[in-house]
């Protein structure tokens, strides 16, 4: 033990260590605060958490579990990207290959079930925040950020749904994207779109409306598969990460996790 202690003391005095950590050992309240404040990742989190803030019966830890599941999705999703081609020719066989031939074939199942679980936990988190009244001032802005994150979670599920490119995926997304036809003004079957016309020529039709932009075509085909892949792997996650940073930071700025009344 004495050797370990000596090694530890030596390490803590090296220039390398001191260039990374600018504070002493976390044995005082001040240093424990500095640990959080001087770390770019930890500083989003409150320095001090109320005793009630970590009481499971009050928080269910649902926000934390949702964030953990997001990290699981990022890790497994990145690994899946090494094998998956977002093309009509390869998409389905790549999924079969991932399940049947690639080592650790459970990776795709982890990604899929993690996604299902994340949708459930994000709803439970919302329920908890609602039932404890934690959306009330000064936290009303953060509630709205949370609603956006809920929508992004559902969009991540929706875009990921298409990628296996089986019959379920094709028709589920055909059905789902048909909703975009009814977009006000910008969907060719939506309210007001018939007003946008020059003479007899309608400006909004199946070849240029909101659904067309989403799918990159008139039906769910190669263009839709590629667009959904890009949105699923890059577009939506980037927006979600930015909003998550705002969400966690606002928890701190709004006075930490709300406590029981």
């Amino acid at each position, binding site marked *: 033990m004495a050797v370990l202690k000596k090694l530890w003391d030596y390490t803590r005095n090296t220039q390398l260590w001191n260039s990374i950590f600018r504070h002493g050992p976390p044995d005082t309240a001040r240093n424990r605060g500095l640990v959080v404040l001087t770390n770019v990742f930890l500083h989003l989190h409150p320095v001090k958490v109320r005793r009630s803030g970590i009481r499971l019966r009050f928080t269910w830890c649902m926000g934390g579990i949702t964030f953990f599941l997001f990290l699981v999705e990022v890790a497994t999703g990145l690994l899946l990207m090494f094998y998956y081609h977002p093309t009509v020719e390869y998409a389905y066989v790549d999924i079969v290959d991932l399940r049947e031939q690639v080592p650790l074939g459970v990776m795709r199942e982890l990604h899929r079930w993690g996604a299902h679980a994340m949708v459930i936990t994000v709803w439970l988190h919302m329920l908890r925040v609602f039932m404890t009244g934690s959306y009330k001032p000064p936290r009303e802005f953060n509630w709205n950020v949370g609603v956006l994150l809920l929508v992004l979670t559902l969009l991540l599920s929706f875009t990921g749904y298409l990628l296996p490119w089986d019959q379920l995926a094709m*028709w589920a997304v*055909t059905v789902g994207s*048909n909703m975009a036809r009814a977009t006000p003004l910008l969907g060719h079957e939506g309210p007001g779109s018939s007003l946008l016309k020059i003479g007899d020529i309608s400006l909004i039709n199946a070849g240029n409306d909101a659904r067309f932009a989403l799918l990159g*075509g008139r*039906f769910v*085909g190669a*263009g839709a598969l590629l667009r959904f892949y890009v949105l699923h792997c890059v577009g939506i996650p980037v927006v979600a990460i930015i909003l998550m940073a705002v969400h966690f930071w606002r928890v701190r700025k709004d006075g930490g996790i709300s406590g029981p009344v």
Partner: protein
Amino acid sequence: MAAAPGKPASAQAATPSVMTRRGFLSTLGVAWTAFAAACAAGAVATTRFMFPNVLFEPPQQFKAGLPADFQTGTVDQRYKESFGVFIVRDEQGIYVLRAVCTHLGCTPNWLEAENKFKCPCHGSGFYRSGINYEGPAPRPLERYRIVLADDGQILIDKTKIFAQEKGEWSSPDSFLKV
């Protein structure tokens, strides 16, 4: 008022390149306007980028062969896969049904033995005419424009849709008399 000490009045006149407040503000206004216009143009161009000019999809109009290729009393499925249409011929003539369920957009199957279209997604059923009679579909299948081309072939135009509930099935282009 006397001139500021140590600063002859001629010194200001000698430096006409100094920007006036009015000049600065108008330059700033022009600059911001130009910047905003450039941003707006960039946003429009980026939006336009998402709408491809060339689609790798079947064309919206195609020739389906001669009317004699279709037998009376049949529902022809030869263009179902490639163009998404059923070509139906009865005693009066030929009409083209759009193979898209009016419930949520799946492709119905033609069941010859049961003499009906049946959607595999939620079970909507349609008569040979396209009229819905079972399941959740709220309205009949749509028909596409069908005319004879100059060479005597059937020309099907998918850009023009005829809906029964709007009374459009009596339109002459929705039906080819043979």
